[in-house]
């Protein structure tokens, strides 16, 4: 009986079978090839986190020179498209009609107060029905007014206490184009879908269809069984990653400043925990429905919400920040962004790769424990 030891032949037979099953299942193509393209287009074109020109109204109730100067400052700002009226009422109507997002009211005695050195406050009314944009627009409007006041004070200059000039400069993504951030994130989402969601079904399917029982009664080893599930999905995920990267660079002009080997290293390191988690879920639940739900909740959603892909981790509440530590994708996103936008910064990439590999080892170990050759529970 030559059934001891790990057999490469049996493994290859199992990998071949798994590959045929993948090739025959249309839903695999959907997730591996169609979905990445869709996601990339979504993040490339439809979702845009940049602030564009906001429509605002300026109610100019004063005829003094300073009041006109402030109104002009709004008009010249690249952030605003301005409509000027001599009273508040028409602007109120315009806001109700959803034509403008905010109203800046320059009061009647603005010029007089300005001359006295104590200008009355400028009122900024924002449309609260879209709270995010309201606060953003209001903040920009207030910032612009403060800038204008400082410039006037500097020009008048009786007390030339030089105002501190804040000059912000953004590196690596000078245009702050959100697409550059989002597309590497989309690649992480795609690898999570293939790595965890698809694999969460594969062992459960064998249990549900009764093939697991028949396979366990052959000399096949459980390590061969697991390896046969890992290899094809690993390759599939890398192919999908390749499609995404090509599209990102060619179609969306995202720079790839790092090297291909670095990209492969980062992806491989992430696929270990992703595949391990999916297979562990599959082996432990033995039920495709439960497995897919678990994979969505424990892997896909955290990758979406807690990986720093859409929401910055540093601006999350402290407890949530701690939770993000156990989301493997949290280490992938900065690594991918680094490889794409900065280059092969090994001091940043290597620690992340090490952490992801450690997660991978843990999940694969749990998975191996969960697939024993036994029908006892």
């Amino acid at each position, binding site marked *: *009986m030559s059934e001891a030891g790990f057999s490469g032949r049996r493994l290859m037979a*199992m990998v071949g079978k798994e590959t*045929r099953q993948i090739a025959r299942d249309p839903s695999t193509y959907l997730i591996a090839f169609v979905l990445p393209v869709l996601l990339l287009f979504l993040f490339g074109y439809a979702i845009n986190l940049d602030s564009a020109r906001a429509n605002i109204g300026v109610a100019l109730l004063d005829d003094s020179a300073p009041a006109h100067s402030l109104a002009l400052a709004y008009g010249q700002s690249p952030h605003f498209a301005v409509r000027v009226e001599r009273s508040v009422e028409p602007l109120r109507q315009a806001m109700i009609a959803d034509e403008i997002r905010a109203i800046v009211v320059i009061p009647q005695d603005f010029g007089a107060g300005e001359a006295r050195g104590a200008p009355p406050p400028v009122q900024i009314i924002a449309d609260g029905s879209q709270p995010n944009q309201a606060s953003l627009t209001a903040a920009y409007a207030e910032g612009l007014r403060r800038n204008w006041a400082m410039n006037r004070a500097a020009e008048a200059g009786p007390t030339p206490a030089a105002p501190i000039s804040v000059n912000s400069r953004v590196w690596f993504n000078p245009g702050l184009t959100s697409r550059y951030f989002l597309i590497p994130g989309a690649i992480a989402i795609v690898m999570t879908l293939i790595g965890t969601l698809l694999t969460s079904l594969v062992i459960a399917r064998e249990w549900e269809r009764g093939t697991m029982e*028949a396979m366990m009664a*052959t*000399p096949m080893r459980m390590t061969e069984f697991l390896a046969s599930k890992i290899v094809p999905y690993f390759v599939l995920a890398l192919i999908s990653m390749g499609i995404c990267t090509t599209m990102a660079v060619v179609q969306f002009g995202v720079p790839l400043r790092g090297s291909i080997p670095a990209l492969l290293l980062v992806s491989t390191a992430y696929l270990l925990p992703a595949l391990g988690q999916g297979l562990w879920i599959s082996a432990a639940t033995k039920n495709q429905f439960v497995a897919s739900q678990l994979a969505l909740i424990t892997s896909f959603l955290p990758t979406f919400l807690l990986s720093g892909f859409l929401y910055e981790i540093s601006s999350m509440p402290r407890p949530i920040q701690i939770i993000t530590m156990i989301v493997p994708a949290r280490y992938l996103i900065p690594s991918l962004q680094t490889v794409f936008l900065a280059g092969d910064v090994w001091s940043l990439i290597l620690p992340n790769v090490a952490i992801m590999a450690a997660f991978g080892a843990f999940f694969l170990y749990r998975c191996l424990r969960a697939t024993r050759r036994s*029908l006892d529970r």
Partner: protein
Amino acid sequence: MSGSVASVTGIVKHFKGLDRPALDGLSLRIMPGRITGLVGPDGAGKTTAIRIMAGLMAPDAGELTVLGGAPGTSLGDLGYMPQRFGLYEDLSVIANLELYAEMRSLPKSGRAETFARLLAFTDLERFRSRLAGKLSGGMKQKLGLACALVKTPRLLLLDEPGVGVDPISRRELWQMVAQLTGEGIGVLWATAYLDEAEKCDEVFLMSEGKLVFGGPPADLTREVDGKVVRLTDFPQRRRRLLTDMLDRHDVLDGTLEGRSVRLVLRDGAAIPTENMRVAKVPARFEDGFIARLGGGPGGTSPLAGVYRQVEPQSEFAIEAKGLTKRFGAFTAANDVSFTVPYGTIYGLLGPNGAGKSTTFKMLCGLLTPSEGTGVVAGHDLRRSGAAAREQLGYMAQKFSLYGDLTVAQNLAFFAGAYGLAGSAAKAAVQRVTEVFELGDMLGRNANQLSLGFKQRIALAAAVLHEPPVLFLDEPTSGVDPVTRREFWSHINGLVEKGVAVLVTTHFMEEAEYCDDTTLIYRSEQIASGTPDELKRQAAELSGLEDPTMEDAFIAHIEASDAARLEREAA
């Protein structure tokens, strides 16, 4: 025991949440070159025993040696076919064979010959590139067997290879396995069919985890030899006679066989035999089994005792006129016609996938016929389907109970579903609880109960509203013979009260209870008549003397196949 390929001594296996062990001290041995039967109703522990022998489960107690070692150590010499065959349905026939060949390290050289031999043996050569999922049940079963045989094993474990497959495929499979024993393979054949047990070299008969009998089947049959009689030419209605006989203390067991009544008598029995012919007939394995279990139930059905007398509202309880159902280009049932008077049982017989379930579903209003009409208790199913459905009680093959509801909740639900409310519903539930002695069970979840109890509760749920028409879909497949007797005593009692019963079955023993039957094969009615008429026709077709219902079934199907081949050739 020396020389055996597997021997098991006193194994015990408990599962969490069940009150009795699945296996309670089972002992058996499998000899090379023999077919050993592991026989018993569903839930007896057959699958658990096989899984333990395959090394897929560990017993709580007991000892076993499989292929000279602990189970699971010599997997290369073990062939195992689980109940669901273990086929990859999205792979082709040949790809499945290749996969199993690799798993069992079959050398590349000579593999083509092995596959050719197996495909010829199973008659699957024509389908080598068809997906396994697209094969019929019987072909899947043969492919499953071929996969278990890619490398000739020394021990072959077959878990209910005959279940859900028509009698013809079952016979073919049996012949194939019998050939294998000639090569010295030890075969364990698990089955719930007692007629298969009779053909085994050695049988281990199980009931509720315990061994009831072990040895050559003839030894068990011999225990009741000479005590089995057939009554014919009696003046009473046959159901009345059977009921009276079963109520006697000197009658161990009894069944209907067409127009005759077959009885197993206790020692020193003295049954009244005026006005009838009594003939001694050979005993069967099942008779011995029932005797070992202490005999069958009595004949009088307490359910029938409290059931209302059904007053016919129309000439026929059920009428099917040219019922046809097409699914796209496929005709599932073609021009099926029959009538069922009140107070009779009508059987729709046929292999799986022949079209009997389609016909059945059209008659209970679950499918709309493409052509033809169905009438139940005077209501046309097309025009007043809801009114027709109120007149029928339906019991499905899988006993459609809600497993995570208690028995009481299930009954309350079905009472509501059949339109009973308030005190009427309460009274109906109360009535069936008493009749079926469900008092102790009411608080338990349905999925914790044994198959026999589930079956009883499913019948209770179907008759809550005392319908004049009952539809039964494979009502007793897999249950033990005592429970089956009890079930049919209820049905016989209801029929005496005027209820009309439509039953679908591929289980030929159930067919014997029918007053009239039709045999559906490849969507067509190929034969109709009483069980006795079908058997007589079969005797003419096949030349068999005194054919059983199963022989009749096979003879009709073979005749139909031959006629079709002739037409196609012409």
